[in-house]
């Protein structure tokens, strides 16, 4: 990785982190769990990394495949559970 590339990625990291800090402001307490669950699904973005790991090779491919299964469960399950929680909210009101 060249120095310019690394610095560029650091810029992205710092700006995205700041954005993340600012995004969560006054969350009503009832939304704490759905928000946690929703951002948990987003953290399944490793799914992208897992797909990229499934190239040629033996063990590196198998590890990537295991990662892909786990990450997909995280993503699909995470979004589905969050949606169920939020659906429940609607009915109550």
């Amino acid at each position, binding site marked *: *990785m060249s120095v310019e590339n690394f610095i560029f990625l650091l810029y992205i990291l710092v700006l995205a982190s700041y954005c993340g800090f600012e995004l969560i402001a006054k969350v009503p307490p009832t939304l704490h769990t759905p928000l946690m669950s929703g951002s948990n699904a987003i953290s399944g*973005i*490793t799914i*992208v990394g897992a797909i990229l790991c499934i190239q040629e*090779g033996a063990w590196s491919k198998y590890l990537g495949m295991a990662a892909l*299964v786990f990450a*997909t469960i995280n993503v699909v399950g995470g979004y589905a559970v969050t949606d169920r929680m939020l659906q429940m909210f609607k009915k109550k009101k």
Partner: protein
Amino acid sequence: MNIFIQLTYLAATILFIVGIKKLNKTQEARRGNTISAIAMLLAVLATLVHSKLLNPVEIFGCLLIGSAIGLIWARKVEMTQMPEMVAIFNGFGGIASLLVATSDYWTRAVEQPGLSTDMVIIVSILLSVLIGGITFSGSLTAYGKLSGKINGNAIVFKGQHFLNLVFLLAAVTCGILVSISMDSIYAMMIMIAISLILGILVVIPIGGADMPVVISLLNSYSGMAACTTGFVLNNSVLIVTGALVGASGIILTQIMCKAMNRSLISVLLGGFGATSG
């Protein structure tokens, strides 16, 4: 990399930010969740194009298996068991980061030793393994506590923090060994084992009532793990999205602590609820 893929990643990033923002408001929360799901779909599609589908059977097979398991679990779970479910999903995100980093390490150390590997990549691999491992075993411990499979009370013993420190130092030592020589496969394996043990040690002293806060914190960790994986693979969407979850997770953890009248530090040090039944 193809400009089309980069632009799709950018669109996904914007949708993730809009999605999280909407999750803050009761009225729009459900739409926010859908928007971030669409963002994830975009990111996955762009990545599938980028990977040129060298192994379509393996990739789609894994996607199918993972989706089926995720959907079935999400449908089946009782409303009261939601926090446990979030904990276990979160743990899977953590182990995925660990596995991706290990896969990349294996390619560089064993399968294609000719690849140029610099310090940024090595440090990122080590951090992904460490944070991913802690997230995985920590989340599973939290799951066990919430579901009553293991003792839900705080488990405290003398010298706990000292033991954590010893393990952390051992992990750093293994990390140094690996960065000196990529061939130190045993050091890498010990590093993985230590990260898994640390996750358990960090969560067992925390009592049942504090569990939601811990899951929120572990969620933030899994974001950071994804972010470091982004540095390993030189992938901007992983870095941005991981950092978003990592940072917003910390803030949410703090807000949840305040709502329960607890300080983050006292939750982390643990021991709360150690004597209650």
